[in-house]
């Protein structure tokens, strides 16, 4: 199937949005993990 320029543009937009959201999700999980880990390290008995 040959895509029209408009179909190509929308497909590309959707792909980049999904990629961006997945990247943001990975970053969120990483940062929250560090934050929670940091708190636990600080709270451990010396």
């Amino acid at each position: 199937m040959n895509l029209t320029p408009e179909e190509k543009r929308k497909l590309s937009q959707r792909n980049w949005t999904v990629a961006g959201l997945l990247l943001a999700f990975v970053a969120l999980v990483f940062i929250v993990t560090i934050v929670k880990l940091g708190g636990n390290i600080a709270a451990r008995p010396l």
Partner: protein
Amino acid sequence: MTTIDTPSRPSLAGPADYLALLKPRVMSLVVFTALASMIAAPGAIHPLLAATALLCIAVGAGAAGALNQWFDADIDAIMTRTRTRPIPAGLISRQGALEFGTTLAAFSVFTMAFLVGYVPAILLAATIAFYLFVYTMWLKRLTVQNIVIGGAAGALPPVIGWAAVTGNAFDTLPWLLFALIFIWTPSHFWALALAGSEDYARAKVPMLPVVKGSQETRNQILMYSVLLSVVALAPWSMGLTGIVYGALTATLSVAYIGFALILWRASPAHERNAALRLFAFSIFYLFAVFTALAVERLTGFAPQ
């Protein structure tokens, strides 16, 4: 002879169309009530975790909205107010909306569970499930009490927000906030339904104005407005909020009843305008009451 299925053309939907599928205006009210409840909750939460909890609530609410549009695509295509939504407009397929909504629902609940806590995650899952299975699939097309009972889904976010901070879902104040939104919902939706009752009648949705008529709807709106003022003031009368919340909520509740009275007395020619004014005020009312709750806590006026 063999037949080959012609593949359908790729969708022309852009990110903005998928965002529209999440009902962002409804989402904003949900997120705001959850935020105010988080601020009012005792204890502290790391700002990043608070933001994560709000994001999960927003995405979960959006997912519920997308799944609602998947199931109600036939109704949305008939009603003037909803026929430009992405599915009836032909931009997103029903299957696409189902997959999108299910994915987001799963992401929001699991992210809430792993990053914030199990109690808010269970509440979020219950909210999405109630909105989809109880309201959308069961009550909406069945009974005139659809939005009364279904309103429980929209009322849960303050409890989720509270649970995200405290880890506890059994305190009194968040459930009073739940009751506030639960009692607020019928007058809010019936005002909108009065203004667009032909739309609901055409789509065969048994909204109160369609089934019981305009006068009964206006009676019920007035009754719920009075009940709302009692429920909204309960947190203050029980000593759980301070004078700022009490005074503002009392003033706004009197205005709310005033708008409901104007609608109750409106002639048929003025009914639509009066209904739309009450609808607009009801949104302002909810924002203002929850703002008072949050501001009172932030400024130290709330009872400790």
